[in-house]
């Protein structure tokens, strides 16, 4: 069966200072096809998309779309051609309302030529409602978490008339339920003959929703095939260019009953999100927090880290009550926190990889406020090597790294501190399979050295593989706990589901 080609990119070359991001890539997508674009962190996926939609000007190559050659110079121009895009790093305006964001750059006008807010609000409510998102659309976007923001970006992209919708890691901040909603949307698009380019590091998603896959490696084409013709391991080996390991649980049953306690939180109340939850973490334990979005996991982490003050409740560190006024207090005691939203709460964009990695470590490698660059360089090189961070040099500004590589730098920021407890909110978000294995191994190694890890993840398989114990949260409460071999995805899901009806009556929207 011949494919009816919608998009054909040929010989695309894109160079950045010191980096050859694309070295002549061919890429084609057929009408009504869900096409996966795969590759390791820094392989050039996002760059290829940006070269297509006019964010970057390509150095060489041609793009044919819907039968003729196009050269869009901005996202808007691409949109006029019928290409709608959700970028990896959200590019919405956080201070504007949800509905304004939905219609940014294409505001409907009323008969007086004025922006028609009423229509915008109604339409936003309808489109978001179809995606199962019920929020107050007149509130600024930043009053909602990353997941809602992501859903708004998705809603915005699919609500414009397009022939091709591009999604660069749309699922990295979504939980299982929302991923299902998104897949429903993708199937509807497909049924209408609209093509979708789908980028994700979650292999099961690729196998569930995509029919074709193109694999990039180091800026070059590494393969193109039908998804039905390969399995996960084959796909991985195309990506990393070698043998692939399957990720597996390495832990046995729970053995930390008698280990000393590192941190404990009791009856924590905070705003609308935390309603009396308590947890405790043992030395060397990997404790997972599971729950749907809005269940208060990130808020709990922020309270523990001192980035948010609890309204009520107590926090203990090594059996002593503590009141962290700011993150500095908790960092001084040996706590680290790798946040969920790397763009807003993680990277310091114009500073280098080196500076970003060591920013919290500096007091430990300084004398009288003067940084020892020898120690700094040694640590930075060690972690670049270890986490396989792809950067032309440690002095590259972190904003020029690919999303996954930025994430690795942020993880390294806390790992290099020799912490006693590391909180990781979606640690493997946007990280490729190979690096994921490396990071999971590192987490286990840390735990083996007696470091405790509090791990928040929307990917239940990740919790299953890594945790000694998992606390399931919903609406800021502790729903239940699973230990050792009890931990598996189904058990977690059923705990979440079981309490569903009863708590929903509380009527609290996330």
């Amino acid at each position: 069966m011949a494919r009816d080609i919608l998009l054909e990119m040929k010989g695309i070359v894109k160079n950045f200072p010191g980096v050859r991001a694309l070295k002549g890539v061919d890429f084609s997508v057929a009408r009504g096809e869900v096409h996966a674009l795969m590759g390791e962190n820094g392989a050039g996926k996002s760059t290829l998309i940006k070269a297509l939609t006019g964010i970057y000007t390509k150095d060489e190559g041609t793009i044919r779309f819907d039968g003729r050659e196009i050269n869009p110079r901005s996202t808007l121009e691409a949109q006029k051609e019928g290409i709608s895009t959700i970028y990896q790093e959200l590019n919405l305006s956080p201070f504007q309302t949800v509905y304004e964001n939905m219609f940014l750059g294409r505001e409907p006008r009323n008969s007086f030529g004025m922006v028609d807010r009423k229509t915008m609000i109604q339409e936003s409510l309808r489109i978001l409602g179809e995606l199962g998102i019920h929020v107050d659309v007149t509130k600024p976007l930043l009053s909602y978490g990353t997941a809602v923001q992501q859903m708004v970006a998705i809603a915005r992209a699919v609500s414009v008339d397009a022939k091709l919708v591009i999604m660069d890691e749309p699922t990295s901040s979504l939980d299982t339920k929302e991923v299902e909603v998104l897949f429903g949307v993708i199937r509807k698009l497909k049924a209408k003959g609209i093509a979708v380019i789908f980028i994700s590091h979650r292999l099961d998603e690729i196998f569930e929703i995509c029919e074709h896959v193109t694999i990039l490696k180091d800026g070059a084409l590494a393969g193109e095939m039908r998804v039905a013709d390969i399995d996960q391991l084959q796909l991985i080996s195309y990506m990393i260019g070698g043998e692939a390991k399957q990720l597996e649980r390495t832990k046995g049953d729970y053995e930390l009953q008698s280990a000393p306690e590192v941190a404990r939180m009791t009856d924590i109340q905070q705003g609308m999100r935390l309603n009396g939850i308590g947890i405790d973490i043992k030395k060397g334990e990997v404790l997972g927090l599971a729950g749907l979005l809005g269940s208060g996991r990130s808020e709990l982490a922020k309270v523990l880290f001192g980035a948010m003050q609890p309204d009520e409740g107590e926090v203990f560190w090594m059996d002593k009550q503590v009141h962290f006024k700011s993150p500095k207090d908790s960092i001084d005691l040996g706590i680290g926190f790798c946040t969920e939203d790397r763009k807003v709460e993680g990277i310091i964009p114009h500073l280098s990889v080196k500076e970003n990695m060591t920013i919290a470590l500096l007091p430990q490698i300084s004398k009288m406020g003067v940084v020892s660059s020898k120690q700094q360089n040694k640590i930075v090189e060690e972690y670049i090597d270890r986490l396989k961070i792809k950067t032309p040099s440690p002095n590259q500004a972190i904003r020029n790294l690919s999303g996954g590589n930025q994430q690795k730098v942020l993880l390294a920021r806390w790992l290099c501190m020799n912490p006693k407890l590391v909180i990781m909110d979606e640690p493997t978000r946007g990280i490729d399979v190979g690096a994921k294995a490396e990071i999971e191994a590192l987490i286990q190694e840390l735990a083996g050295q007696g470091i405790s890890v509090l791990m928040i993840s929307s990917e239940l398989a990740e919790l299953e593989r890594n945790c000694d114990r998992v606390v399931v949260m919903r609406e800021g409460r502790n729903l239940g706990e699973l230990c050792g071999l009890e931990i598996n995805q189904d058990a977690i899901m059923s705990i979440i589901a079981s309490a569903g009806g009863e708590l929903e009556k509380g009527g609290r929207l996330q």
Partner: protein
Amino acid sequence: MNKAGKTREDTVALLKQYSAFILLAVMLLLNLIITPNFFKVGTLWNIITQTCTIILTGMGMTVVISTGGIDISVGSVMALAAVISAKSLETVGIVPAIFLGLLAAVIPGLIAGFMIGKMRLQAMVVTLGLMMGVRGAARLVNDAKIFYIDGPHASDYTVLGSARIAGVAPVQMIPILLGIFITWFILEKTILGRHIQAVGDNRKSAMLAGISATKTLMFVYIYSSVFAGLAGIVSAAKIGAADGNTLGNLAELDAIAAVAVGGTSMSGGRAKVFGTVVGALIMQLINITVNMNNIPYEFAQIFKAIIIVFAVYIQRDKAA
């Protein structure tokens, strides 16, 4: 990574990085051709004497701007420090007089730092208020008159503006080199320097990495004020008079222009110390070129405007 051969992008990046230096070189070359008597040692010493103010205030301004702020009170602070030190000279002697002048400069810095760092008010508004208030204070101290430095201690003071090191180099070399070195050292070598740039680049991330934005901002506004105070004292010493009305007028604009031409982003982040130095030299070179060629001063202003826009244009970074 792929190091084989340079691409066009590499060259562009390199040109961008050194654009301010290239601009300076081009202007020197131009002067060599068009300006009679340009390449004389005297001209060099002249440039150094005259850029002293811009460089000193520019150092403070670089630090402030890299936190994403701005300090438009520097001109007024120059006047205040000059007037206070000049007036107290006869009663307390030279060292305490300078100390008092700098102390007077610390106060507006402290106020700005507190309001911007702690109360989170906007830097532009706070320092605009200070610009007016401090100018008023300087005029009050002086009864709105020019104060000629006079009396038995006068030469202790004026020597700070007219002495020659080893009989040739202007004394201004000392504060210039010290100012550049200290600023460079803080920004590049110390924890504080990292904190300054981190707070300016992404305040939220910085705070989550354990940085106190309040303390950092307090520091930078005091730093800027002290440098402005120093610039004020050096200028008064050069002229031999302290004028609360006019000393330092529009100095803030020169400082901001030097920072902008030097490549530090107005929205904060990476601080370019040597960029600012080059920016200050370019600004001053324009004055001198115009002067030595008998071109009306108005052209210097227009020319500066063009240079600023041009420099900011080539250094702009497209959103990633």
